[in-house]
């Protein structure tokens, strides 16, 4: 069916289909069973399927997410989704933005630009209703015969065995059992898998309530994030405004802890709040309304043997930094390649420990940022409110105070500085591309995948596997270097090596750094070699290409070198 003929995502119902597993004499065994067909579970499933790993996804529902839910997808998420084959659809449909404005009462205090430089394929952020992302991933999943999404399939039992995990699944036809060598729990904040294993996600809850109203209307606010502290139309509280596609606007009203969630959800309560912001004669319809409070929390460990937790099942944050779905997509990105190598026998099971270590550290970073933002937005004591207001007053005139105003520190990918998979620098490098950093994008001219003007992007050339970037002086690599680069591509864990030539090179092979931005962003000089992980994080770099060092770093990055 053509994508255009499908009903809008929020109206789609996915049919339950009986699986042959339900008639099997013994529980069918699968390499990976993913629980939860939300953005994280679907991204992990598509990533694994691209790598050739058969996947079963179990979801207890037969619809996509209700309401817009996650709406802000960060540049790093778009890069991940680009690799999975849906990024351009998100950018095409979504509202791109990069500017945030902060107001105190009725006056602007300051604005910030989340991507002040050019030379990136993707925008800083795209706003898009969560159900669109889910719909794109479900459509993408259909391209893989070995990716089986089973709707209306609720996990009700779980038994960990030495060689896998036995799951009991409840369906409209009754229960059946299947087993996964690995189970990835992406089943959300109230994770059933977590509950069945007797595990908890713990943290700090915030004594405040917020109203989300998705409003459909024709309005001419610019595509920016607007945040008000104490506005005249909603005194004493904060308000956040975001634009989504389809003429839908997300308005977030802080209500305070005393607010009655049931009462505040009623349209006759919600509409006056919106009219206060938009004007009494504003013409709008309510799309979706929700009242929420939140907890910043995480599981103590994201790996429990053969069960791996990802997304909201593993960690939760307040919505103010857009760090929920974005960090969940980074979880999926981090896990898929590791599971693939382990299932393929090319890396030890211990590589999966690095998933937990890296993403637990990332969750801590997200929770720290989210907690600080929430404390600023929701001062928990009178003195805290005084400091907050003083900061806002000073921010009008003084740059130092603008840096302290915290209406949300928006999602940035974690730099995996302390990852056991990194190889420390031996050579001197400046700039941001330290081992563990997510790779910066940059424009390139490539022989493959040329855009309309021969232009492409570095991250679109860095594929699903390990990649080596070899920076040349304009001459194609030859002799021992070429032999060494080719040998890396032939190893058990192949490293696809790309030559990066300076501007003006008429290269038959490799990429040309037409604007010089690759060399600048990677602080590269002729001879520099970067080893990049399949999830596009730097694992090692040198000023000279030395195959034994690269092989040692590759062994380390695949969990085969436990020595410190």
């Amino acid at each position, binding site marked *: 069916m053509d994508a255009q003929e499908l009903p809008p995502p929020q109206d789609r119902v996915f049919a339950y289909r009986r699986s042959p597993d339900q008639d099997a004499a013994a529980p069918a065994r699968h390499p990976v069973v993913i629980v939860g067909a939300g953005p994280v579970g679907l991204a992990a499933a598509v990533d694994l399927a691209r790598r050739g790993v058969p996947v079963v996804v179990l979801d207890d529902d037969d619809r996509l997410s209700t309401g817009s839910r996650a709406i802000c997808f960060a540049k790093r998420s778009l890069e991940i989704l680009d690799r999975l084959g849906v990024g351009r659809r998100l950018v095409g449909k979504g509202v791109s933005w990069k500017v945030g404005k902060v107001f105190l009462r009725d006056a602007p205090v300051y604005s910030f630009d989340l991507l002040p430089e050019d030379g990136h394929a993707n925008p800083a952020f795209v706003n898009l209703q969560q159900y669109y992302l889910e719909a794109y991933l479900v459509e993408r999943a259909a391209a893989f015969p070995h990716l089986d999404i089973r709707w209306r399939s609720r996990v009700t039992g779980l038994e960990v065995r030495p060689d896998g995990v036995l799951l009991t699944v409840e369906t409209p036809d009754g229960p059946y059992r299947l087993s996964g060598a690995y189970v990835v729990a992406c089943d959300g904040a109230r994770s059933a898998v977590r509950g069945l294993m007797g595990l908890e996600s713990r943290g700090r809850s915030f004594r405040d309530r917020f109203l989300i109203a998705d409003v459909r209307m024709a309005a001419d606010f610019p595509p920016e994030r607007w945040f008000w502290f104490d506005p005249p139309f909603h005194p004493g509280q904060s308000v956040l405004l975001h634009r989504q596609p389809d003429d839908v606007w997300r308005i977030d009203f802080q209500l305070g802890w005393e607010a009655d969630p049931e009462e505040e959800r009623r349209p006759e309560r919600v509409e006056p709040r919106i009219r206060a912001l938009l004007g009494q004669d504003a013409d709008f319809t309510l799309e979706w309304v929700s009242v929420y409070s939140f907890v910043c929390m995480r599981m103590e460990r994201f790996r429990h043997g053969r069960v791996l937790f990802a997304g909201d099942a593993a960690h939760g944050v307040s919505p103010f930094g857009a760090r929920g779905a974005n960090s969940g997509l980074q979880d999926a990105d981090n896990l898929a390649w590791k599971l693939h190598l382990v299932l393929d026998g090319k890396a030890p099971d211990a590589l999966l420990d690095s998933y937990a270590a890296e993403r637990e550290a990332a969750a801590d970073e997200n929770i720290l940022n989210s907690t*600080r933002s929430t404390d600023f937005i929701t001062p928990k004591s009178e003195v805290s409110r005084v400091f907050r207001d003083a900061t806002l007053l*000073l921010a*009008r005139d003084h740059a130092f105070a603008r840096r302290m105003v915290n209406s949300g520190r928006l999602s940035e990918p974690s730099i995996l500085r302390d990852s056991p998979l990194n190889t420390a620098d031996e050579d001197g490098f400046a700039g941001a591309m330290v081992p563990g950093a997510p790779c910066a994008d940059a424009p390139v001219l490539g022989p493959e995948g040329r855009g309309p003007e021969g232009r492409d992007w570095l991250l679109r050339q860095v594929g699903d596997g390990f990649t080596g970037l070899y920076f040349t002086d304009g001459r194609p690599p030859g002799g021992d270097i070429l032999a060494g680069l080719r040998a890396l591509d032939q190893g058990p864990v192949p490293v696809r090596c790309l030559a990066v030539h300076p501007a003006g090179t008429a290269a038959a092979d490799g990429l040309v750094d037409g604007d010089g931005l690759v060399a600048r962003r990677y602080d590269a000089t002729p001879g520099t070699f970067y080893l990049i992980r399949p999830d596009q994080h730097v694992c090692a770099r040198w000023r000279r290409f030395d195959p034994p060092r690269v092989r040692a770093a590759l062994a380390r990055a695949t969990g085969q070198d436990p020595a410190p």
Partner: protein
Amino acid sequence: MTHPPTTNSLGLDTTPRLADPDAVYEALIDAHQGLSPEQSALLNAKLILLLVNQVGDAHIVAAALAEARRGL
């Protein structure tokens, strides 16, 4: 939105000088945890006196006082 120059004629530097302002802000708020309003006011006064002494320049202190007082 235009912003006036951030260093005034009296030499008060209001450009960002902290590497991690969020962490310092958090420490300021956390320092007040469990204190009564009177104790919080006392903490703030002691903190200001300590920082004023650290600044060690009466002209800068005067400029900061004038800036803090502005608009009240």
